[in-house]
């Protein structure tokens, strides 16, 4: 039972931590043109989420390692977020072209990643019916 709770707890902690930084970032006025990056909080987020990732992935069934790789592919295509800004903001055209290509590449990963993961997962059955049908 404890093993089930721990990752959820860690996820909860991360969410709370991120919420705190999100709120904290609200506080300063948005006037400053160049906002200095708070690298330390970024590094904290990176290290903590890596630990959560290691904890969760280690418990993924070996049966599902191929779907796992497909779904993490789709998830890491979150680069789409950066590409949307680069494509859609008021930037010089060559920069926006690079953004559009990046957006296309990430979108391809999102679409094919999630679709193929679901397609593979649908195939995993315990198949009670067929086994019992065979025995009779």
């Amino acid at each position, binding site marked *: 039972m404890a093993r089930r709770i721990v990752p959820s707890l860690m*996820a909860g902690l991360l969410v709370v931590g991120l919420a705190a930084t999100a709120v904290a970032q609200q506080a300063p006025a948005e006037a400053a043109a160049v906002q200095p990056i708070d690298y330390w909080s970024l590094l904290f987020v990176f290290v903590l989420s890596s630990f959560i990732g290691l904890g969760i992935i280690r418990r993924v069934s070996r049966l599902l390692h191929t779907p796992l790789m497909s779904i993490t592919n789709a998830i890491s295509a979150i680069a789409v977020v950066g590409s949307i800004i680069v494509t859609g903001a008021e930037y010089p055209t060559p920069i926006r072209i690079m953004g559009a290509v990046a957006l*296309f590449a990430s979108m391809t990963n999102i679409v094919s990643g999630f679709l193929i993961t679901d397609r593979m*997962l649908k*195939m995993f059955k315990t198949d009670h019916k067929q086994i019992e049908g065979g025995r009779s």
Partner: protein
Amino acid sequence: MIHGLVQFSYLIATGLFVFALHWMNTPATARRGVYAGVAAMVIAVAATWAQPEVVHHVWIILAILAGFAVGVPLSRVPLTAVPQRTALSHAFGGLAAGLVGTAKFYLWSSEGPENLTTFRMIAIITEIVLGYLTFTGSLMAAGKLQEVKWIPQRPVTYPLQNLSNMALLGIAAVAGIALTIAPTAAWAPKVFPVIIVLALLFGVLLIIPIGGADMPTVIAILNAYAGLSAVAMGFVLDNKLLITAGALDGSSGLILAIIMCKAMNRSFANVLFGAFGQVQQAKIGGEQKVYKAETIEGAAQVLEQANLVVIIPGYGMAVAQAQHKVRELYDQLKKRGITVKFAIHAVAGRMPGHMNVLLAEADIPYTDLMEMDDINPDMPQCDVALVVGANDVVNPAARYDKSSPIFGMPIIDADRARTIFAIKRSKKPGFAGIDNELYFSEKTWMLFGDAKNVIGELVKQLSGGSGLH
């Protein structure tokens, strides 16, 4: 206000991603994970798009549509081609990271050099190096897996290979450090492409010396790189969602790579740098060994008498497209009350977990797919071990023969079963480079022929003969 909402949406998306992966721990909840992932992605995209600085919408819509147009067909590939598809999507991920990093650098160096802080420059250099090397490296890997003609399948080696690769990386590192120190210098926009070219080249050079057997590990390592390049992008853009999602992907790739390495008894360094060009030497000399062949009828009779049958599939089964015939055999044996299990070695197939997916597609219940460590203790009680298209993973030489290239690799104990049937295409010994001692054991009987035909004949024999007994 909008900034707060965007951050809040990212927060929800992060939570959903964590749960998506958490639900992958058992097939029963796994599909829920996909829905959580899709929901998170939709929220993240919508929140980003709603930001006021996004003013040009047409290009975004076009790029998204193009992504759908390519992504949907890519998700319908046959399951034997999933490794290539995965490698290709790592390439796309790397490309996206590289391009965004490049775009941001040129943007800031022309209109906002104060943004190019030391921290940002380190992040940008990391992002583009990882991104572009993942791009070309994964393309090479996909090409090798797809068996594209102009990409050599065999490991390509040349003298001083490691040294020249390291030198390339060293030049890129020096250029990167120079840029980090003086990101606004007049020469900076000219040095930047040098790093891009070096990273692209390094990706190719990293993969060409790696042979087919190591592909599962390489795919997993490239997966980790793609994730880390997304993390670096998060540092560049000051975006925590990118960091968390990238870190999840990176840790997944790392764990899978470690599992693959353990399953082959090799180290990371050994896969990437160590075994360059060690062509497996076939042992010359030794006494002439003979196979004992068995007929289909004989094999069917032995199978009928068994209580526990363990089928050991390898990628050869998928090449022969024999999965569905194997399923029919499974049904026939189950009908007689025989327990049938599948013993799956971690490196069976061409990417982590590949064999499970191939068998699941053939409608074999996943509850009968066993990991090596779970099935090995039962092997002495096993009446018949049926080897279909597997070779190295059942070779007992791995246990004691120090001269064997697979020495030390954990194997499925097929040789401890009471009877072993092995299906083999040709009688020629040394087909796969190394002789498999299992085939010459006194308990082993060979069934010669194409896996699909042999299993099909067995099924016919079992279904036809059942009325007479």
